[in-house]
């Protein structure tokens, strides 16, 4: 049905588009279209208003000044907005280009304990009104370890080229979010791109070239490692333990391990990065166009990781009749990524652990041999293709009645071909291929009516959005192919031949695929009223229907309302002063269709170490999905209630302006797996009822410290700060506590707390160990008595048993305060800008330290924690912090869940400094190139310094769940030299 409508739509639209003359569009960009009133000569103000769709300038306080940003070699949307707007916090576990980042607007809305949880918390990104889709998390289901998702694992948000961005705004206003609908329930990043503009033809060429520097590291060799371990062996080891001392450490004549540790010369190398883009735009007052093409390479110095991106963008706006406008935007992008060569990531991808007892040697020659194998034979191609576009039509049916309709598409596909030769793996080779895509189309219609009489203005709009998401992947892997020449799984393609579709070379190929859909249909109405310029009121009513909610509760009605009072106008003040208040309720989308099915059967016969098994003796086996948990009926929508009061002020003739928002966000009725008696076989039961409250203040202070003027120094400064606290306000069935992934969620406490034993040092003598006076038994850990050399953990409940009940909630992994401080100074043609970012009051668990100290258990068990990477041959932790415990103790003294490893991860960073000059001010340049409008050259330095107490490499490079594992590739200093030419 819907599909038919699309074809009708196109049939009508295309002939009209061919008529083409010019364009206009209003309602969807209502809040954006405050016009660029600066330099352009006025063609015709009304026509201009209708035609310049994409290059409208945003003036709200939450929009980001992209001009200074564009002097930085930022790659992803997260990079661009970090520290630039209040209330936006970006998590970045690694500096590796293209890896996932999480964008949180006003805190966590739900649980975030694993990588797959980020989709539930991440803010939506809209590009020219198109909601970018997120890669579905379902591919994690077939993975034993969730370090990376299978496939290229490139964050879609790194595909948007900064050169194509004209404006970025963070939408937090409840009413505006309500207009966007459920997809925006975690906040929205609203991006508009470069686009057509009526006027003289403009050509711009921009580019930069730069390099990322090597970090300074303190490498060590086996001698140091041996000394480190002797601390433990001399004190606690039994003869048997000593006998089994690792071979690579016991032979001090082995030059690979005991020789010089100079792996870093190969692992780190200064990496070059560049971008070049060319844009062109122009047009008449009836039609305009814009084209932008760019190529970017981003790289960091570690492990030869880089990313290449190709980007083409095209926009046409037409106004065939005064009452009709058509515009279309299309953006194609491609990313090729060189990923890291971590062993851990490789074994996780393979789901196969070889013998890990001997690590890579820290010696350069040995490492060079290893890299040689990698470069010679390995294949690791990671490509993502992105296509995004929309076509919109706007009709002024009556002077005060407008109809607009649009069709938008966002398509992202990822391809990964992987081959590890047998030499690299010592014995077997491995190949895998992945093809997956995420496709979203949105069909929107809106009818708007407005009426003015006297000083009153009424607006009314009704509309509907229909979006369909399709997620799909095909994954195939094969182990131990016949030789290292067959690198890809090639099948016989001819159906007439023998062995049709059989893999060549006798490969045993394991195949996995899955598909997921999410359809969302929304009907909404908006009523607006304003009186003079004094008072504004708006209400939005929505009905959202989702395919991922059970049928009988599929439709959700959500109302929203807000008002604004311009006190400055009312009281006739010179400075800006207004108050805005709003409330909205928004459904929260679910990207899995499993809840909608109710009680269900699945093919899940796997076990903890092998979750993918779905057959028994080759026969498909189906049962209730006990590992997934019980899914009953009556699962409903979760929703988010948002409250906000905002004060916008300015002082001293607008030299100082402030915006202060007090907000509360209640994300209610979220579905979570809650415990049930395990005697039914289920891991738990999915139930609505988890609620999280975020409360806080967003503040932005913009100051003109020195005003602009000819031949004068000017200085503008902007400070933004967010104070946020979250609280778990409810759990399903009135539960007060819920254990999950080694954390404890307790009602009334933050959801991002760690659950830890409190460490008070070490038991140095047996007299230190408390003895229960009533039983005469020594303090024990789940029945294992403490001994000398064990960790001293606080027995919170005083029962002389250290167990889970003695763990306390401590620390948080999202910050209490965060924001940025951005400055720009100009003098004559020179300008200098610098930005700081900071995050305070957050903590991280130093898993890297825990893993390093817990070497005995890790290595003996051959777990993935025992993988030793080449870059771990460096001093990356503060050894003075940790006592020397008995690593062989049954109490597991170096366990990760204790506050010994909890560290303050607050930081302040000088993130960017740039200095530039506009050469076009020089007369001889101006006179030699007549059409030159601007010739701006600049130098930029990034990641200049960090102030922190954190003992690891970088407090920013922490996983989404607050675990610092030391795997994040470093954010080192980057220097770029660039030029921007406007002709």
């Amino acid at each position: 049905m819907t599909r038919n409508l699309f074809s009708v739509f196109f049939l009508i639209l295309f002939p009209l588009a061919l008529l083409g003359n010019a364009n206009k569009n209003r309602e969807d960009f209502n809040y954006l279209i405050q016009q660029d009133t600066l330099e352009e000569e006025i063609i015709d103000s009304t026509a201009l208003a209708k035609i310049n769709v994409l290059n409208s300038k945003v003036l709200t306080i939450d929009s980001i000044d992209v001009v200074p940003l564009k002097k930085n070699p930022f790659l992803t949307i997260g990079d661009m907005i970090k520290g630039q707007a209040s209330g936006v916090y970006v998590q970045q576990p690694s500096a590796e280009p293209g890896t996932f980042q999480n964008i949180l607007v006003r805190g966590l809305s739900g649980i975030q304990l694993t990588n797959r949880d980020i989709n539930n918390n991440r803010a939506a990104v809209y590009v020219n009104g198109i909601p970018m889709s997120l890669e579905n998390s379902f591919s994690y289901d077939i993975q034993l370890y969730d370090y990376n998702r299978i496939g290229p694992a490139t964050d879609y948000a790194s595909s948007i080229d900064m050169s194509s961005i004209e404006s970025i705004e963070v939408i937090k206003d409840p009413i505006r979010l309500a207009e966007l609908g459920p997809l925006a329930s975690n906040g929205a990043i609203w991006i508009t791109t470069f686009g057509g503009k009526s006027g003289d033809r403009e050509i711009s060429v921009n580019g930069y070239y730069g390099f990322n520097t090597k970090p300074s590291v303190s490498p060590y060799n086996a001698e140091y490692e041996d000394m480190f371990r002797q601390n433990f062996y001399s004190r606690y080891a039994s003869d048997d333990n000593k006998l089994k001392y690792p071979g690579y450490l016991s032979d001090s004549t082995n030059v690979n391990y005991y020789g010089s540790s100079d792996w870093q010369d190969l692992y780190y190398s200064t990496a070059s990065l560049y971008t070049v883009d060319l844009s062109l735009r122009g047009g008449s007052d009836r039609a305009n166009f814009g084209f932008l093409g760019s190529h970017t390479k981003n790289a960091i110095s570690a492990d030869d990781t880089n990313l290449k991106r190709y980007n083409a963008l095209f926009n046409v706006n037409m106004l065939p009749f005064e009452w009709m406008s058509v515009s279309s935007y299309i953006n194609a992008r491609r990313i090729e990524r060189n990923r890291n060569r971590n062993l851990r990531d490789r074994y996780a991808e393979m789901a196969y652990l070889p013998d890990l007892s001997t690590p890579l040697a820290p010696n350069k020659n040995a490492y060079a041999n290893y890299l040689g194998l990698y470069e010679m034979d390995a294949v690791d191609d990671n490509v993502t293709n992105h296509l995004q576009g929309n076509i919109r039509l706007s009709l002024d049916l009556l002077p005060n009645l407008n109809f607009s309709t649009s069709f938008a598409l966002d398509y992202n596909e990822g391809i990964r071909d992987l081959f590890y030769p047998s030499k690299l793996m010592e014995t077997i080779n491995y190949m895998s291929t992945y093809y997956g895509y995420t496709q979203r189309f949105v069909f929107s219609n809106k009818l708007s009516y407005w009426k003015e009489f006297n000083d009153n203005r009424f607006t009314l709009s009704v509309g509907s959005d229909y979006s369909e998401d399709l997620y799909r992947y095909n994954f195939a892997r094969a182990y131990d192919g016949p030789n290292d020449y067959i690198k890809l799984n090639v099948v016989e393609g001819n159906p007439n031949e023998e062995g049709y579709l059989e893999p060549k070379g006798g490969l045993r190929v394991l195949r996995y695929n899955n598909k997921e859909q999410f359809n969302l249909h929304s009907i909404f109405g908006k009523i607006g009223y304003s009186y003079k310029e004094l008072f504004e009121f708006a209400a939005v009513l929505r009905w959202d229907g989702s395919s991922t909610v059970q049928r009988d509760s599929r439709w959700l009605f959500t109302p929203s309302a807000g008002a604004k009072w311009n006190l400055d106008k009312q009281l006739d003040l010179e400075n800006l002063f207004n108050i805005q208040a709003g409330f909205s309720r928004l459904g929260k989308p679910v990207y899995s269709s499993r809840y909608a099915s109710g009680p269900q059967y699945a093919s899940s016969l796997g076990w903890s170490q092998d979750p993918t098994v779905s057959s028994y003796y080759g026969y498909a086996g189906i049962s209730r999905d006990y590992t997934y948990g019980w899914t009953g009926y009556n699962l409903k929508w979760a929703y988010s209630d948002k409250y906000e009061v905002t004060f916008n002020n300015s002082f001293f003739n607008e030299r100082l302006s402030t915006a202060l928002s007090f907000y509360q966000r209640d994300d209610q009725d979220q579905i979570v797996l809650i415990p049930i008696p395990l005697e039914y076989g289920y891991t738990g039961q999915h139930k609505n009822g988890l609620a999280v409250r975020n409360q806080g203040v967003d503040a932005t202070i913009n100051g003109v410290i020195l005003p602009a003027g000819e031949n004068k120094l000017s200085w503008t400064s902007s400070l933004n700060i967010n104070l946020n606290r979250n609280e778990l306000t409810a759990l399903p069935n009135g539960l007060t506590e819920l254990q999950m992934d080694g954390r404890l969620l307790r009602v009334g406490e933050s959801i991002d707390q760690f659950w830890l034993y409190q460490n008070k040092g070490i038991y140095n003598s047996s007299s230190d160990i408390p003895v229960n006076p009533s039983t005469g038994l020594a303090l024990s850990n789940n029945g294992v008595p403490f001994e000398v050399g064990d960790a001293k953990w606080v027995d919170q409940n005083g029962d002389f048993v250290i167990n889970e009940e003695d763990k306390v909630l401590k620390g948080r992994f999202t910050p209490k305060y965060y924001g940025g401080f951005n400055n720009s100074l100009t003098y004559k043609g020179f300008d200098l800008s610098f930005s700081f970012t900071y995050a305070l009051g957050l903590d991280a668990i130093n898993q890297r330290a825990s893993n390093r100290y817990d070497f005995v258990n890790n290595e003996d068990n051959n777990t993935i924690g025992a993988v030793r990477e080449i870059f771990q041959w460096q001093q990356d932790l503060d050894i003075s912090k940790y006592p020397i415990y008995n690593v062989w103790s049954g109490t597991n003294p170096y366990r990760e869940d204790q506050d010994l490893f909890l560290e303050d991860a607050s930081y302040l960073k000088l993130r960017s400094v740039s200095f530039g000059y506009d050469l076009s001010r020089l007369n001889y340049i101006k006179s030699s190139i007549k059409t030159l409008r601007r010739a701006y050259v600049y130098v930029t330095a990034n990641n200049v310094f960090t102030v922190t107490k954190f003992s690891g490499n970088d407090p920013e490079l922490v996983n989404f769940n607050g675990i610092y594992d030391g795997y994040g590739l470093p954010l080192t200093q980057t220097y770029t030299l660039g030029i921007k030419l406007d002709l």
Partner: protein
Amino acid sequence: MLKEIYIKSCLLVLCAIVLFTSSCNKSLDAPSVEVSPEQTHWRSISDTKAALIGMYGLLRAAMVDNNAHWMYGELRSGDFNSYRRQDLSAVKESELNKSYPVLENLSNWRRFYAVINATSLFIEKAPQVLEYDTRYTKYNLELDVAQAKAIRAFTYFYLVRIWGDVPLITSSFDNGSFPEFERTDYRNVLAFAERDLIDAVELLPFRYGVAPQEYYGEFSSNWQKILFNKISGYAILSHMAAWQGKYLDVASYTQFILDNYTQSNIAYLQNASPSGTGEAGLAGYYGIFTNNFNFGQIINFSSAYEFGEASTSGHIEELTLAAPFINKAYPDIYVSKDSINSMFSERNDRRFGVDTLSGLYRESYFKNYNNEIPVFSKINIIRDGVSDGDYAVFGSNLVFTRLEELTLLRAEALTVLGQDLRAIELLNVIKAMRGTASYQVSQLTTKPLLEEIFAERRRELIGEGWRFYDLIRLNRIKAIDPKVTQLINQGGIHWPISREVLRNNKKIVQNSYWN
């Protein structure tokens, strides 16, 4: 102008259509392709087949998760030592409350209760398929339900061996309510299981899919490797009785097995290390642990490489294999030379002994005997039984029991019942197959028969998950080992119940030994 008005009014109509007709609810039906919802399930014979297979699959998953079967049965107090792993040492030494994740996982019984829930659900729901699918016959249903009952009984027996008293839940409660149950006395649990099983063995066939009657579209060659048959039912009954010391019952159940096993194509494993698939043999690439084994199995769980079910974990090989078979310097667990020597005292033993002609060791059970750390190689099925250990995934069968085991169990029962001569006869069946000297009646006074039967079990069944339970049974009959006896008396033979189980059901109390 007229044209414009015309276009406009057309568009207006179109807009109205678009706006109000696009709201069709149907487009919001996008059911998950990953799962089958309740409403459309239990409609056809393929649903019952998948559910039947599902029960076996879940049981396999429960038994191999964290190598549980061997952790519980073989490692604990057994002949294997941990090379380096602290957590495995803790299992061996019965220090099951130490802070190792493996121990916590092993003390969680959820995965066994998943099997129980699936079987109850099957018994409740399968009959409704009769209405919807005429291909599904009453006879088919009978066979399926009998298997479900047998699986449930087996699972309860398995649970009882590990945790003692466990909650007895006999229906699926498949309605979103999850009442809390207390632990039931293990005797009542076993009584229930036995009743169910006695019903089931009546219906269970010796063979599934005997021509011309197919079972789920196939004849018996595949089914005999994986499904529970009549002999399986009697084997479970025998063991349940033996665990409770009801040796009279054991004698009668095993009698049935020994009288009828050939009907299920079951054979004695005459050869300790067979050289081809034609003969029923024990160790090596053609033995009972491979998918190449072409005889009937009694209770067996397959992970055939052929079907992509071979895995690195869930097989004893993960713990026991090392160089020269796979690329691993030392095994996680090994049997020390001393233990090997005390176990295999006879040079002619085909499982492990010395070849009198060449002077070399027979390596069916152990490789690298001359090294410090011998490698246990009795069960050594890399992929589908290849010698190339580069890609170490294991496709071995989890053989829960086989004819030799049941023969020795019968010998044990007969000994307890005082029928020594008949017991010796059975013991010597095994000894003859393995090339060792027969037990003579004259030895009864010098070499106690019961101990000898258990010593034979130890030799024959090492690596198959019996050792710990054998020790329990032996010491219950005759307190020989003070350590084990102490464990029995104090209730320490059972595993602690995991904290998660206790947290989720407040009516469950911890085994007192582990408090």
